[in-house]
């Protein structure tokens, strides 16, 4: 499902202080941003950045010290009792440690969310069967959690979270306890849930690859501050903060490899280095050919990288342009006129 303009989660100036004895530590510091219906929004940061605390405010497992969260049109401030529980039923949640009932079978674990809603036995039977089929665990319905692998447990967690047909799914480090292959399959499943069931997903993670794979929006948190927020493609193309550069650099190399750098240092002609960001829609553009032929400026591809983001492909090409200041200006004007992002870089 593609992102829309309808806001489903709005964090308004969230501050959270944890008090332990006389010590007050600030977990979140005036954080504000919005998640729209259909988004898969990644909340990324290192340990202690406050990302889980923020996520847990969406279903009020945590309450902000200051600020408010609006979920599905309801302000959570002062929302209690039945009204809060009804909102929670519209939000599914999955956890790093799965949190399944060890004493119940897979079927009963999924059924429990429906029992809480007072659904009939027939409906529960039919709904759980459908859900287990959806997550690919039909053959495990009578197994107990201790008989399942980590990935299977998370699938049960997902089926349970989806039982009440929620509009939002919260994922708290949902793949952090899984191996790479299993992570991949869980991420594919979440992506399918987003597309087929129109569920908005908020995903807390410390791994940029998760963001790269499924998210269209990303919020980068550091020491309780929201450092960057926006479309994944924009932030991946042009990270501003040090921490964003660090995360993005892990998937899109943004440092010039040493071998190339050494060669360039030996080169004594006049040149500029620029980095051009191509998206898939530029794929058929002949920018470099045009620079060479129409502008008659000499270029040399230093290195390039390609990353597949959720729906788009981002290619970053580092180009050496040799010539005069006039040539450089011509090239810059030309690339700008094609509305392709680029930046000048230095060694």
């Amino acid at each position: 499902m593609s992102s829309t303009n309808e806001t489903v989660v709005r964090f308004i100036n969230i501050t959270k202080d944890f008090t332990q004895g006389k010590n007050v530590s600030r977990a979140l510091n005036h954080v504000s941003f919005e998640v729209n219906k259909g988004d898969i929004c990644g909340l990324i940061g290192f340990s202690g950045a406050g990302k889980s605390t923020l996520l847990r405010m969406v279903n009020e497992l945590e309450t902000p010290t200051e600020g408010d969260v609006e979920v599905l049109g309801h302000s959570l401030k002062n929302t209690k009792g039945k009204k809060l529980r009804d909102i929670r039923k519209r939000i599914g949640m999955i956890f790093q440690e799965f949190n399944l009932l060890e004493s119940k079978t897979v079927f009963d674990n999924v059924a429990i969310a429906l029992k809480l809603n007072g659904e009939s036995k027939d409906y529960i039977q039919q709904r759980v069967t459908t859900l287990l089929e959806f997550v690919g665990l039909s053959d495990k319905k009578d197994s107990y959690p201790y008989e399942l692998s980590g990935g299977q447990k998370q699938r049960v967690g997902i089926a349970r979270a989806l039982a009440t047909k929620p509009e939002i799914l919260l994922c708290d480090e949902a793949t952090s306890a899984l191996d790479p292959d299993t992570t991949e399959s869980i991420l594919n499943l979440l992506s399918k849930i987003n597309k087929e069931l129109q569920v908005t997903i908020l995903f807390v993670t410390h791994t940029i690859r998760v963001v790269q794979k499924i998210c269209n929006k990303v919020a980068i948190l550091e020491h309780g501050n929201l450092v960057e927020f926006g479309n994944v493609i924009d932030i991946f193309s042009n990270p501003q903060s040090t921490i964003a550069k660090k995360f993005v650099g892990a998937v899109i190399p943004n440092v010039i490899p040493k071998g190339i750098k050494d060669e360039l240092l030996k080169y004594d002609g006049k040149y500029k280095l620029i980095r051009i960001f191509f998206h898939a829609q530029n794929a058929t553009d002949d920018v470099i050919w045009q620079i060479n032929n129409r502008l008659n400026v000499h270029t040399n591809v230093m290195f390039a990288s390609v990353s597949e983001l959720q729906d788009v492909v981002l290619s970053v090409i580092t180009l050496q342009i040799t010539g005069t200041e006039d040539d450089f200006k011509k090239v810059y004007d030309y690339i700008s006129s094609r509305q392709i992002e680029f930046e000048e870089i230095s060694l």
Partner: protein
Amino acid sequence: MIDNFFKLLGIPSSQLITCANQTLYMVFVSLVLGSLIGIIFAFTLVLTAKGGLKENKFVFNTLSFVINTVRSIPFIILLVFILPVTKAIVGTRIGTTAALVPLTFFIAPYIARLFENSLLEVNKGIIEAAKSMGASTFEIIIHFWIPEAKSSLILATTIATISLLGATAMAGVIGAGGVGDLALTYGYERMNSALMTFTVIVLIIFVQIIQALGNYLARRARGRR
């Protein structure tokens, strides 16, 4: 042959059966009452504890203090100390039924502490998952907490049952009868070592059966057969 056996013990078989019945009656009734009070106390403790779902310092501290106070009194003293209460509740100070009051007073706080432990063992994440599903506190208790703690609660009950069995031996002080009393009055005071040995064996068998049953039920509750 059986007649010879009871001649050796020095008591009629009917008396032995009466005593066994008295013991089972005392254990069973006070266990049921004690468990009911115990589970209510245990949930009150875990819910009102710091960080609990219904945090309440006053209730937690008060209940905790009351439980500790009652548990400080040795059973043999509790038995006679609360005689006025016993009289007020069951209308008599002596006999098997009268013993139910001190036995319940004795076991309920003990069970409360054992159950409190069992409830605290449940993974906090499960309570959190329950909350995220929009469960009310009551639903959390019924659908999540008790099922997850069930196995441990059963083992705790087993321990409490065995403690109760031991306590009933002292209930003879207020004329409650039972197997333990039989061993003391006939076996010890009349120096009937055959009877003494026999009652000890009966008690050992009781304990073995209770523990085996407890283990079996706990295993089943965990979903592992």
